[in-house]
């Protein structure tokens, strides 16, 4: 293990412990612990001493240990209390520390307390004698009225475990199963074939076709698998081009950029979307599949068009014609037919959620059940699903939940005088930070770190209601997907880079430009368009 | 009843006299009576006819409705064989009947019947013959007796023939075996001759080829020298970005450098990689070929300059490789020419160690994988044709390689054997030669190889033995105490062989 990783481990662990030694004003003990988990997660997610999905699982584990009623912290520690000693009727002797001004705290169950007014009768060495009608033989007075445990009612550990089966996780699982079956039966490749055909052979049109297909597929499948499949389409094209034809670079960039942007279009397009939706769900706000698309698709179209124009301008084609190899036939076996039907029906139900009211997560279980029942996907494919991506998202969701529950998010937000900035500036800052961060770290992680804060900000009422919770969360999800300036920014970028067709500066310049323009478009939409859709 | 055309006495075949005590019954008395009875009958008298030599009584395949009872003279029977030739199958003498078979079966004549000495015969038509019992009972009786005699004779004859056949078969078999042996011997002799002719042909071919290769190889070598001089001059005179002295040093280093062994190369590469981590590995590997003392000459050369001068070094190195390779070709050609000396045998006093060394060089590819140990102290010359001796060494060395398979130790030694003889031993570390096949391995066509596709062709050892015998030498085989076969050649030294 190299030094960098060891340092990351040490720093992360130290930051986890640090809040426990501080007494931050206005933050509960649980808030302190959550802050520690947040800092550890941030360091581990960003520097990756352990895999990011392992960090997610670590987050859930730490929450169970430190924040749940079943965790050892609450199992093994109790709030110190003492039984009052009767002196005479309604006069009791209690430990001196128990007296808090003119009241004492009565311990009811576990950490729940009730204040009771008392009047001091006599002060002794270590004890005081008080008069109160609230005390009785069975009551216990809290010896340390300032104890950290007080007034925190730890949730059951199932609350944190639930993150692993959060509806949005199930929605993604449904998407994964569909995508896995699509890859198995070459549905993605065959759709590509069919869609590309009308685009002809002119380089500009070919690029447009490729980008459109990529974006569409990546809206429903993983951006990674989509990019890989499209690379198998373009590698033969690139091979027939002149080595110094700059169109090669353009086309090699078009695919990953279209995949990144396309992921924005649907809730299942890319994990940051899930983080936003999951966090909103925790706030009791449900965003329907179709509703998300209405928010996102205009952005996607505008950005795709911009990317298309940009790449063709910067990397024009030398030739007049590009020939695509588009042979192949649809698989017409029974299982493949089942897949086509299930796929079509699922997407239809997702998009039409507003009409029938079935939540997208409920619909997502249909392909899971149907495709496994018909053995369209089997053990091998199930094993091969990207479970670690689901866990990664679950950790993000669990962290968001804890930050809200413990008041940490609100506390962090309170550190900055947001009210001095305009609401519009605030979402601009969030979007920019999300896009900037996700250039260097996983998009999911960036969203996981930022969305809870943004949501608290919306819920805190600090901002005027022109910026809703939804817009705040969504802009972060979009921003996370728009960070695509570096090869390490997203898996599609990494795949495109590894073909050796590109140099990093090509990708950095174009990616940065697209990120900035995309964010600008998103902000414009956020200002003028989205508020019309979100009540 | 009608078992044969005739009963006949043997005689014409020349082999078949009757065994003693098996004499044929004398029929002359019966014949005389037949003649008498026939002449007595007016009807039959005119049937007694005379035929001169050469007359055909019967023609094979035709129909003839007469039976001849021979009273005098002889008739030969011929059967047509393939291709129009006729084979005499029997001789018919007085007392025998001709045409009896056709009479019995109704078939056309079975054979030709030709008169050889003038014949007197009683010729009866089938009709007459059939009615004899009624018309001439006495004659009929006599003729019956003759026919019986014929049959008896015929049976006896068959037994004798079987006996003869058996004897003949045995003889024939013996002769055939002998013939086969002769053919085999002839074949192996022929193989040997072909082999020798092949070798001679190969020799001529190789010599021709060697000559052809020699010219371009020499030209290459010469050009290498000229190129070297020219390049050195270019380095001196053409001003460039590099200091000509340093460049010259790199050039010379390239000309004289040996490719380092892999371990050295690796350690140099590692050292360079440590010092210059930003350089790519292929480049470092090329730099690692330059001897470190050249790189660190004087104050040391900065890596950029070394990289600039790398082509100069490599040009020198490549030129050197061309030179070494061309020299190898030239040496190989020289040796090939000696080895495959064409033309008729020229006996001379030869140092057999030279031949062994040449042969090893030619067989370099085959012996490369073995540990070759030479123990060749000076020995007196022997009188022989060096080309043919080389063939012996080739056979022995090749054999040894074959016996060892993939690895082993090949040991060749020579020395004096007694006062006036010289020995050479070729020892391998293979399985050795089992006692029971020790002599057989010198037989032609003996091989332990599964496919005799090498140019020993399985007769290498027998040829070697013959070649050595021509010069008064011999070839023997034994096993070394430590395992492996030892082939030992002994030849008379030149002073004594005259």
């Amino acid at each position: 293990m190299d030094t960098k990783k060891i340092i990351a481990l040490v720093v992360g662990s130290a930051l986890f412990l640090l809040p426990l030694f501080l007494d931050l004003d206005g933050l509960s003990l649980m808030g302190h612990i959550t802050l520690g988990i947040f800092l550890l997660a941030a360091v581990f997610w960003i520097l990756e001493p352990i895999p990011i999905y392992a960090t997610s699982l670590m987050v859930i584990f730490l929450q169970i240990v430190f924040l749940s009623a079943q965790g050892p912290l609450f199992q093994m520690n109790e709030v110190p209390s003492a039984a009052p000693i009767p002196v005479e009727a309604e006069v009791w002797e209690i430990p001196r520390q128990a007296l808090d001004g003119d009241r004492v705290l009565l311990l009811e169950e576990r950490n729940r307390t009730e204040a009771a007014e008392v009047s001091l009768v006599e002060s002794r060495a270590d004890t005081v004698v008080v008069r109160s009608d609230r005390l009785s033989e069975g009551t216990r007075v809290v010896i340390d009225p300032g104890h950290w445990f007080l007034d925190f009612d730890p949730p059951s550990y199932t609350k944190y475990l639930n993150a692993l089966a959060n509806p949005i996780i199930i929605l993604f699982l449904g998407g994964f199963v569909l995508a896995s079956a699509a890859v198995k039966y070459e549905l993605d490749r065959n759709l590509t074939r069919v869609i590309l055909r009308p685009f002809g052979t002119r380089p500009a049109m070919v690029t447009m076709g490729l980008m459109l297909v990529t974006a569409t597929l990546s809206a429903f499948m993983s951006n990674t698998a989509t990019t890989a499949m499209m690379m198998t389409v373009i590698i033969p094209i690139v091979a027939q081009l002149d080595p110094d034809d700059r169109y090669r670079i353009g086309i090699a960039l078009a695919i990953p950029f279209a995949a990144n942007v396309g992921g924005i279009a649907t809730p299942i397009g890319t994990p940051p979307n899930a983080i936003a939706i999951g966090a909103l769900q925790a706030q009791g706000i449900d965003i329907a599949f179709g509703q998300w698309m209405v928010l996102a698709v205009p952005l996607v179209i505008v950005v795709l068009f911009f990317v298309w124009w940009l790449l063709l301008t910067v990397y024009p084609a030398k030739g007049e014609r590009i020939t695509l190899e588009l042979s192949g036939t649809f698989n017409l076996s029974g299982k493949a037919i089942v897949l086509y039907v299930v796929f079509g029906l699922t997407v239809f139900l997702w998009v039409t959620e507003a009409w029938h009211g079935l939540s997208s997560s409920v619909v997502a279980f249909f392909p899971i059940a149907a495709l496994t029942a018909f053995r369209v996907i089997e053990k091998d494919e199930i094993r091969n699903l990207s479970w670690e991506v689901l866990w990664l998202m679950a950790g993000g969701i669990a962290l968001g939940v804890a930050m809200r529950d413990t008041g940490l998010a609100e506390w962090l937000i309170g550190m900055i005088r947001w009210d001095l900035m305009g609401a519009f500036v605030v979402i601009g800052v969030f979007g920019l930070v999300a896009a900037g961060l996700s250039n260097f770290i996983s998009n999911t992680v960036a969203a996981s770190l930022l969305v809870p804060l943004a949501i608290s900000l919306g819920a805190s009422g600090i901002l005027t209601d022109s910026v809703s919770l939804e817009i705040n969360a969504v802009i972060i999800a979009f921003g996370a997907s728009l960070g695509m300036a570096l090869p390490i920014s997203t898996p599609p970028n990494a795949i495109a880079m590894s073909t050796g067709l590109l140099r990093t500066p090509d990708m950095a310049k174009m990616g940065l430009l697209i990120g900035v323009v995309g964010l600008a478009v998103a902000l414009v939409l956020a200002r003028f368009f989205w508020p019309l859709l979100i009540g | 009843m009608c078992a044969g055309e005739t009963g006949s006495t043997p005689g014409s075949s020349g082999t078949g006299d009757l065994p003693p005590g098996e004499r044929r019954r004398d029929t002359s008395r019966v014949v005389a009576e037949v003649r008498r009875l026939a002449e007595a009958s007016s009807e039959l008298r005119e049937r007694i006819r005379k035929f001169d030599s050469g007359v055909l009584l019967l023609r094979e395949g035709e129909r003839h409705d007469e039976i001849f009872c021979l009273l005098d003279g002889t008739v030969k029977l011929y059967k047509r064989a393939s291709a129009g030739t006729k084979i005499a199958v029997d001789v018919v003498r007085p007392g025998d009947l001709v045409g009896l078979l056709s009479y019995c079966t109704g078939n056309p004549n079975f054979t030709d019947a030709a008169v050889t000495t003038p014949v007197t015969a009683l010729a009866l038509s089938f009709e007459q013959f059939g009615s004899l019992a009624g018309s001439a009972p006495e004659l009929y009786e006599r003729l019956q007796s003759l026919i019986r005699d014929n049959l008896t004779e015929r049976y006896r004859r068959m037994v004798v023939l079987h006996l003869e056949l058996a004897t003949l078969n045995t003889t024939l078999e013996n002769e055939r075996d002998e013939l086969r042996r002769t053919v085999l011997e002839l074949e192996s002799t022929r193989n040997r001759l072909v082999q020798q002719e092949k070798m001679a042909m190969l020799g001529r071919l190789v010599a021709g080829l060697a000559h052809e290769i020699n010219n371009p190889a020499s030209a290459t070598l010469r050009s290498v020298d000229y190129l070297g001089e020219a390049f050195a001059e270019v380095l001196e005179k053409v001003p460039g970005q590099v200091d000509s002295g340093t460049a010259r040093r790199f050039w010379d280093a390239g000309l004289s450098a040996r490719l380092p062994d892999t371990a050295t190369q690796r350690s140099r590469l590692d050292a360079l990689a440590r010092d210059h981590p930003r350089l790519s590995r292929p480049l470092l590997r090329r730099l690692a070929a330059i001897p470190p003392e050249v790189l660190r000459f004087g104050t040391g050369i900065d890596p950029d300059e070394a990289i600039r001068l790398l082509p100069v070094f490599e040009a020198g190195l490549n030129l050197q490789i061309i030179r070494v390779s061309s020299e190898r070709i030239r040496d190989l050609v020289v040796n090939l020419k000696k080895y495959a000396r064409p033309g008729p045998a020229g006996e001379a006093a030869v140092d057999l160690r030279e031949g062994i060394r040449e042969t090893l060089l030619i067989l370099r590819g085959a012996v490369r994988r073995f540990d070759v140990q030479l123990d060749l102290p000076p020995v007196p010359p022997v009188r022989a044709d060096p080309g043919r001796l080389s063939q012996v060494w080739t056979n022995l060395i090749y054999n040894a390689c074959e016996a060892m398979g993939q690895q082993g130790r090949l040991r060749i030694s020579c020395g004096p054997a007694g006062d006036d003889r010289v020995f050479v031993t070729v020892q391998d570390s293979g399985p050795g030669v089992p006692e029971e096949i020790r002599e057989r391995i010198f037989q032609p066509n003996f091989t332990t190889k599964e496919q005799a596709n090498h140019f020993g062709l399985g007769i290498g050892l027998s040829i070697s033995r013959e070649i050595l015998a021509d010069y008064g030498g011999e070839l023997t085989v034994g096993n070394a105490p430590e395992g492996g076969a030892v082939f030992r050649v002994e030849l008379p030294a030149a002073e004594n062989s005259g």
Partner: protein
Amino acid sequence: MDKICILCVDDEPDVLRAVARDLAEMEEGFPVETAASAEEAKGLIGEILKRGDRLGLVFCDHVMPGQNGVDLLIELRGWPGLQGTRLVLFTGQAGHEDTVEAINRAGITRYVAKPWERELLVRVARDELTSYLIESGRDPLPLMRYLDQERLVEYVRRRNRVDTGQ
């Protein structure tokens, strides 16, 4: 550290030099090591494994002093740490039986005859290392540019996993 090496074993220094030169374009991704004999090769492989690198591909001559190539390959096939390593017989001198032996017992996947064409050698190295990478289950992206991109991209599509970002 954690590099995938190519090893060439041949007793002719000229051959080693030429092979290293032919494979130079891949060397940034796959360091080329050379050994002049089976013994040296085995020592070298031990070092490679010890320093945490892996051996992806071996080009091995057959006729060499000491242990021959086919026997070396058979021996290497049984080494722990070389599972999946692609073995190539690289010779002009292996007979029919040796080659059969090499295929059956050492599991060689290719036979490159000498003299060789540079293009063929590079293609063989590329194909074999692509297979090695896919079989080893490692992230193929960092090395993809040196290898068969179509196969590797298809592999990524099937596996739907990339070790950078997400």
